[in-house]
């Protein structure tokens, strides 16, 4: 069985996995970090988005073994010293969630979007940037508002 070592939210972790172990399984089941969700398991919904070496990816379609040596950030890694990340705070303030299932993926995607496109985001850029994230509850309106406001505070 392959052994993988990676840095998850700044901490070095190590574990034995099977070839077929998905990154999301490693994160949720081996590390117990259950903030990353599995919605579709078919690479469509984006609930499982985490950052691998600084880039947003769908962890349900990524092998854990292929992330050996990588730096991974999950939703649990965003808040610092008990204080929510500006993007998390903005989702709370702007009511960017209802059931909250899609939210970890939305926030990880939004933070990635700001990294690529900067803090001033228009509505079109945000909607395109969230193309890989599906929300069954909100109708997206407040998610877009939350991302726009959160981006400016990052």
């Amino acid at each position, binding site marked *: 069985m392959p052994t993988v070592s990676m840095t998850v939210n700044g901490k070095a972790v190590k574990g034995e996995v099977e070839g077929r172990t*998905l990154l999301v399984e490693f994160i949720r089941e081996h590390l117990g970090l259950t903030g990353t969700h599995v919605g579709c398991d*078919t690479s469509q919904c984006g609930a499982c988005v985490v950052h691998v070496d600084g880039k947003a*990816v769908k962890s349900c*379609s990524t092998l854990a073994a292929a992330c*050996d040596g990588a730096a991974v950030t999950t939703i649990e890694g965003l808040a610092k010293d008990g204080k929510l990340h500006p993007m998390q705070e903005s989702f709370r303030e702007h009511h960017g969630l209802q059931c909250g299932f899609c939210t970890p993926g939305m926030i990880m995607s939004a933070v*990635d979007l700001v990294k690529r496109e900067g803090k001033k985001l228009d509505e079109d850029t945000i909607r395109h940037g969230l193309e*890989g994230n599906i929300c069954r509850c909100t109708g997206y309106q407040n998610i877009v508002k939350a991302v726009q406001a959160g981006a400016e505070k990052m």
Partner: protein
Amino acid sequence: MENFNYHRPSKVADAVKLMKKAKDGKYLAGGHTLVPTMKQGLATPTDIIDLSGLKNAGVKVGAKSVVIQAGTTHAAVAADKGVRKAIPGLAALAGGIGDPHVRHKGTIGGSLANNDPAADYPAACLALGATIHTNARKIPADKYFTGLFSTALKDDEIITAVEFPIPKKSGYAKFPNPASLYAMVGVYVVQDGKGAARVAVTGAGPGVFRQADMEVALSKSFKADALAGIAVKPRGLNSDIHGSAAYRAHLISVMARRALAAAK
């Protein structure tokens, strides 16, 4: 998903050796086609040979051509300043594949090896007259795509790079399926240095193909008006729950016009 032996070689020759030794081996690049396929049980390889250890990502822009390493992600092609300047249509195509997360993982080599009938890169390769470089040979695009999910690649052959001649102008337009984001129809139009036009269509048929009547017309005048007399015939095009053959035939004309309008 069935389990498999996982390998991550750092040399192309070692990858080929591992493939020859495996009972039923598969190369893995970004995994954004292969992993979902394995989850569904449509592929159950005994061995996965991960090509990411080859570190074969990057772009080289020369005077006459752009060479993209097989392991380069769609996001990296879309953002590359050299590609954006030399072949803006190709950068725009890469930036329109799937969603941002798919573009961070999916690679040009994986897309071309898979040859999905609705994938975007095959249209660019065929229209631009690209050359597919493998560990064994160089294959011109006109000989590479051999039909539905099939290519000229041998089982253990590895794509190492893709070389695109720099055209005078080119552009791409696709009508994405709103659920999958793959092309319902995508059309890539090219005008080369001598004024000759090439037009390739993806999504509409069982595999990417050239639209000969449009090529003749656009070689005379590389403008949407030149397409006025051309009615694309639905025969042989895909009909499914997303759209009939007649609908796709119409989309080819519309996407060709949009691609011409976008051509730079």
